[in-house]
């Protein structure tokens, strides 16, 4: 059991299963296919990211360094949140990037989403957490890998 403390972007308490992207997560490429079919569950569809490709992301704890790719990324996060098909939490090891930050803010303000986002968890967090781990998130930004 190991705990990390990050900065709360959008707070909440949650316990769930981690899906880990070791590389920058391309938001559009990852979410596009499921969103296109209006699927209730997002399956990662970025073939260039084997860490999340083919994995269910809806309701999971998505652990990543930052997001990358098209500047539509914010809108894509807002869209999956509006469909309630989003990961329950985004845990960033680095400072949240501007595209993901936009998406989280858009989801909170315009969709009343309960999505959780915590950043600045550090490289050690990303080195430690593995896909399939159970992760507990507290309102104050504490993340514990159980």
């Amino acid at each position, binding site marked *: 059991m190991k705990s990390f403390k990050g900065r709360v972007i959008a707070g909440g308490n949650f316990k769930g299963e981690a899906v880990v992207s070791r590389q920058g997560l391309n938001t559009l490429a990852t979410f596009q296919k499921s969103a296109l079919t209006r699927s209730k569950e997002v399956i990662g569809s970025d073939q260039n990211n084997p860490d999340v490709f083919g994995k269910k992301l809806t309701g999971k704890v998505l652990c990543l360094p930052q997001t990358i790719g098209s*500047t539509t990324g914010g809108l894509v996060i807002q869209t999956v949140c509006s469909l309630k098909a989003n990961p329950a939490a985004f845990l960033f090891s680095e400072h949240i990037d*501007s595209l993901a930050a936009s998406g989280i803010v858009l989801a909170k*303000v*315009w969709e009343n989403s309960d999505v959780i986002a915590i950043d600045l968890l550090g490289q050690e967090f990303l080195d430690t957490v593995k896909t399939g781990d159970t992760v507990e998130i507290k309102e104050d930004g504490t993340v514990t890998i159980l």
Partner: protein
Amino acid sequence: MSTVETRAGEYKMELTQEQLDILEGKKGETMAKVIKTVVMFGEIFGAKRLVPITHNSGHLVTSFGIGILAPLYRTMDELINAGIKVKGDFTVDPRPLDYKNVKCTMLEKLLFNKILYSKQEQYESQLKKVGLKDEDGFTCTCYLPEVGNTPKEGDILAWAESSAVVYANSVLGARCNRNSGMLDLFSSIVGYVPEFGLLTDEGRKASWKVYVNTTKKPEAQVLGSAIGMKVMEDVPYVYGLDKFLGTELNDENKSYLKDFGAATASNGAVGLYHIDNLTPEAKRCGEELIKPDAKEYIIDDAELERIKNSYPIMWKDPNKKADKCFIGCPHLTLQQLKDWTDKIEKGLKETGRKKVALTTVFTAAPGVVKEFQKSEHYPRLMAAGAKLSSICPLMYTNNPLTKKYNIATNSNKLRTYSAARFYEDDEMLAIIVGKEGH
């Protein structure tokens, strides 16, 4: 000045009374949500205040009515119903479709119209209602003189199109962060943008010194790619390029910097670069722009070759020849269109062909296309069998059915976001004019 924190305990940012009033709903619930989004976004990046946008025209990145983005259309309707428009006007990225100049099969049209871009008409109607400049406002190169959305040095912007942001910051000396879609619109509505990052003097300092030691003028798209991949979101200060580009900005080197910048922004996440002795801030401030602990990156011929060879070939059948090619991502300048016309005409004479060897689409802003159509080059390009469009090649290739085509391009941005294969300009020309072995 007072702070929201003292009044509401919710925000740390210093806000004016007018901004506070909007936040508290005095201009309606929707306006309150718009400014709340901008303030919350700024706070994540430690912005201490909102600063006024000083250029009258915005530019939006979201130009496509892609069916899945339901919240976009709902939000636009909410803005329209509340009578909200941007301050000034805006241009927007290129349209995804142009059936007249970029032919599609019935199946492709069905996919585009009914599934992929099923909301295009509705979205364009919404854009007009919130402040779209005009019908010709669809381009990623809004800053070109033929389009007229050209900020001046020092202007504060809230654009999101990555190639336009890096051009405005670097070549024009304006100040703009790499924003996301929607934040570009919301900031243009409130007329303010959070002050952080590339809007500040400190944020514009370079943390990389890049030395270009090549034996000839490097291909803009490959040099930009190399630098983008190395520095990612950092600011590079580039030495040695003035040897090839000169020390005064002109149409030719501005076209070069447009393509170079788009590659730095798409192959990395560069929002600003400085070219020693050439770009405005580098000319004015020189090495004062470089942070003391800046890292170094040396680029020679071998490094560019290594970068080019690292691009994966995504064609379904790499052994087959190209079926189509797109030139103009970002959209071409008037001079680039004229140069390509001259080169193709000369190349066709050499190969003894009358027409281009494959479907060849040149893309440029509607305003640039109109100017080009007045020139003596236009009938010559058409006679060579090329197509001219203002489509977004990226949006066209964002279609699973195009995967059956071998699409070639000289754009590193298009290569990055699609299955198109990258060729340098000379190789691309050889393919277009049907030179043997290509």
